[in-house]
């Protein structure tokens, strides 16, 4: 099942989509802020992953991968992981904020 890993990631996006659609977390709506968050995270953790793969800490079963490999022997699914999971994290935090508006996160506009 070469789509296995990809399907798990797709499941994460599908599973959290209701937060954006029905709860109106406005995370995808703020795509520029999301992209600015994801870029350094995916780069840092992607490099960590490359180092770990080279050190032999973990390896992937190719039978579950689509077969697209990035420089550093990084399966494309791993890079997608570091884009998908952080997106889910942001969606979760914004959903908590919507349900508990009095729990401040720290980015609320300052009153003047």
């Amino acid at each position, binding site marked *: 099942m070469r789509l*296995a*890993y990809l399907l*798990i990631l797709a499941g*994460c996006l599908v*599973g959290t989509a209701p937060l954006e659609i029905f709860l109106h977390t406005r995370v995808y709506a703020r795509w520029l*802020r*999301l992209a*600015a*968050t*994801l870029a*350094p*995270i995916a780069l*840092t*953790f992607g490099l*960590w992953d490359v180092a*770990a793969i080279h*050190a*032999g*800490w*973990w*390896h*992937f*079963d190719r039978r*579950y*991968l689509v077969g697209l490999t990035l420089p550093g022997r990084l399966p494309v699914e791993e890079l997608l992981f*570091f884009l998908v*999971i*952080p997106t*889910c*994290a*942001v969606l*979760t*935090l914004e*959903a*908590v*904020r919507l349900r*508990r508006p009095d*729990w*401040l*996160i*720290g*980015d*609320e*506009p*300052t009153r003047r």
Partner: protein
Amino acid sequence: MSYTDAAVLGVAAACGLDVLLLRTRLVGRKAFWTAYAIMLGFQLIVNGLLTGLKIVRYDDRAVLGRTVAFAPVEDLAFGFALALSTLSLWVWLGRRAAR
């Protein structure tokens, strides 16, 4: 260096980012811990699938050997570091925009 060392370093670095560098101080906020508790539940499922189906396999020499839902305990630290650094950055960017 093992995955164990790197995972501990990752948590320390994420806390440093949150508390000292970006000063978002999410580790002191109820909203963060609530969101993290929810994420942890789903991490166990996703991680359990990735390791349970053996999509990813770990070298015994790089980990302590203790597992939670098929995955090495180190993954919990790694996941925490990923969540905290991501959310710290997200909040910091929003704080800058709000000013």
